[in-house]
């Protein structure tokens, strides 16, 4: 029971971090139709900016300023780059963000070098917060969950309860009408793109300290973020939330299980052993396959329910 609870907490907190990472991507996609390949690069920039700020003023300033900086950078990218490319269609946009991801990575190499940075959890958040039976549970994980949940609530309230949120929602489905009503739709797009980047930047501030801040961090999370957005349903914030939790828990629990296909077949009455043909396949443990499971889910989802858990687009 203790083990189960610890793993549940681990799964939920990892899932919530994944949600922080993917929410910006799914927002930008839902509004602008842009699949932003550079999204994970904004995550990386968040961590690097936060590290740089933390060397001057400490962790907390970084937590606030770094996402704002990344957001501003995102807006700049939209204003001077993406907006011009937009006229040439979605493929051009996709290629633009693809190239941008490489540019950001090289820039990080040039400025901060190739080695991992000593960016760690601040002393105030270091250490256990409470005990689950005999296992102390780390304070930073709880902090991570808190930030993620408050981010979800804030984004939700902004989209549904504020004027700008209503305009954004309207621009999602009827951009021409919104434009005709006198709203500056390109500016809204710029804000949304910047907002998406800022959310990724915030995830970077949190994730960079919990994990490792190095130039490979963008590539490492890039694929999983796409999986979440696809499984949750392209453009659905709630879908991304549930998909993140699902994948976080799935990965965590599959690590704990040393089940094999061979074991399953043996209980079904087959006799299996190292001499069985294809033994190397039958003897793969579930824990060994854990990192691949999200991709399996994505493939299954695309086959059986292409619009994802809560997606609305059926094209």
């Amino acid at each position, binding site marked *: 029971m203790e*083990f189960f609870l610890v793993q549940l907490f681990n799964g939920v907190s990892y899932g919530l971090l994944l949600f922080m990472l993917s929410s910006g991507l799914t927002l930008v996609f839902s509004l602008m139709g842009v699949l932003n390949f550079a999204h994970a690069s904004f995550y990386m920039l968040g961590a690097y900016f936060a590290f740089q700020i933390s060397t001057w003023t400490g962790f907390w300033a970084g937590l606030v300023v770094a996402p704002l900086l990344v957001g501003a950078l995102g807006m700049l990218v939209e204003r001077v780059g993406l907006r011009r490319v937009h006229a040439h269609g979605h493929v051009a946009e996709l290629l633009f963000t693809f190239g941008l991801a490489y540019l950001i990575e090289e820039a990080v190499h040039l400025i901060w070098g190739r080695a991992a940075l000593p960016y760690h959890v601040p002393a105030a958040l270091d250490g256990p917060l409470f005990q689950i039976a005999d*296992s102390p549970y780390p304070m930073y994980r709880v902090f991570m969950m808190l930030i993620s949940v408050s981010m979800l609530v804030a984004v939700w309230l902004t989209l549904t309860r504020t004027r700008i949120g209503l305009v954004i929602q309207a621009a999602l489905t009827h951009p021409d009408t919104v434009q005709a009503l006198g709203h500056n739709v390109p500016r809204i797009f710029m804000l949304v793109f910047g907002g998406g980047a800022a959310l990724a930047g915030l995830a970077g501030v949190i994730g960079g300290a919990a*994990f490792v801040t190095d130039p490979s961090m963008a590539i490492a*999370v890039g694929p999983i973020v796409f999986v979440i957005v696809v499984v949750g349903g392209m453009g659905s914030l709630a879908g991304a939330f549930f998909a993140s939790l699902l994948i976080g828990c799935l990965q965590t629990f599959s690590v*704990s299980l040393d089940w094999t296909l061979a074991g399953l077949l043996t209980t079904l009455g087959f006799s299996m052993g190292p001499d069985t043909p294809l033994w190397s396949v039958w003897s793969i443990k579930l824990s060994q396959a854990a*990192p691949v499971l999200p991709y399996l889910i994505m493939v299954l989802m695309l086959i059986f329910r292409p619009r994802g858990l809560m997606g609305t687009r059926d094209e």
Partner: protein
Amino acid sequence: MGLPAQAQTRLAFIDPLSGPFALTGELALRRLRDEVALRNALPTARNAWEVLALDNKGTVQESLIALRQAIDQDARVIIQGQSSAVAHALIEAIHRHNERDPARAVLLLNYAATDPALTEARCSFWHFRFDAHLGMRMEALTAHIARTPEVKRVYLIVQDYAFGHEFARAARALLALRRPDIQIVGEDRHALGQVRDFAPYIAKMRAAHADTVLTGNWGPDLNLLVKAARESSSALRFYTFYAGSPGAVSAMGEAAAGRVIDVTDWHINATTRAEQQRAEKFQARYGTDYHFARLHTLVQMLHAATLQAQSTHALPIALALENRRFMGETGEVQMRRFDHQLLMPLYIAELAKREGTQIASESSALAWRTLQTIPAYVATQPTSCQLNRPSRLQ
């Protein structure tokens, strides 16, 4: 075959200088250049050596192209280390080249590829290894564990590829031999570089009541593992092979203090004062720590062999390298004639808060300190190698 007056000896360095593994490649290249400069300043150096840096992007195909370029540019010595797969491919290609064109034969000096097969089943006359291979390191590690009664319940975690599998196999075999009372309470294999969150693995280790973890992980997979252990306040101790590699200490940070024990051929607090001063100069100049002390041994031994051989050809240099002894920074080393494996002392070193005159690692507050010195004869492994000597010698 005396040395031509103006002969420039080229050493070709073939390792990743771009892509995800470029960090280690770059640091090794920097150190190699530093060592070659040191050698060029020796009074016995009759001509200048020059390093030809070739980027193999971490792949076998690019390495073979780089080898071609090196040979075309008259390099007779290839220096490589960052991947055993690349080392195997280079050896095969070098074999073919040397058979066809003995006048322009080349040598492979390997400073880091640790697959035991390189000096056992697939050993080659043209290959020399200046690093302790996996079997030697595991021998040293288990020799230390044999003297450490606190280790009772061991958990193995490795990356799911050839090196990781071999690590786990060797660990089980040698622990069974040296400490049959130790229980191996679990073994995990995880995809290389795919796992971000190691907390579930740590929870699993706790649930299995492990006290010690043996891991072959390197790079982010090691750093994340150790950080996750600290996060969950676990008292697990990690025995590693790669906690001393570039970037690891700064990435792990405080998390590693008193928790990480590394098997290494060198660390800064195990060396002479003169060497420490050189390391400090290096640090001030490049802003990075001193790594790959083996490159010092490699360059110095190559220099001595070249002097003895009175030649720039690969064959006489190779013969002069065989059985050669060298007083390294950490004791005497010797290039074994049967398999071209360097026999060297190893260290079991713990990462802890810096004390007294210890030198810290990577501008952190942590320093390596030796728990046990493993003399060369302890880690020495028997070899099944049957060197295929060039026909002219038989």
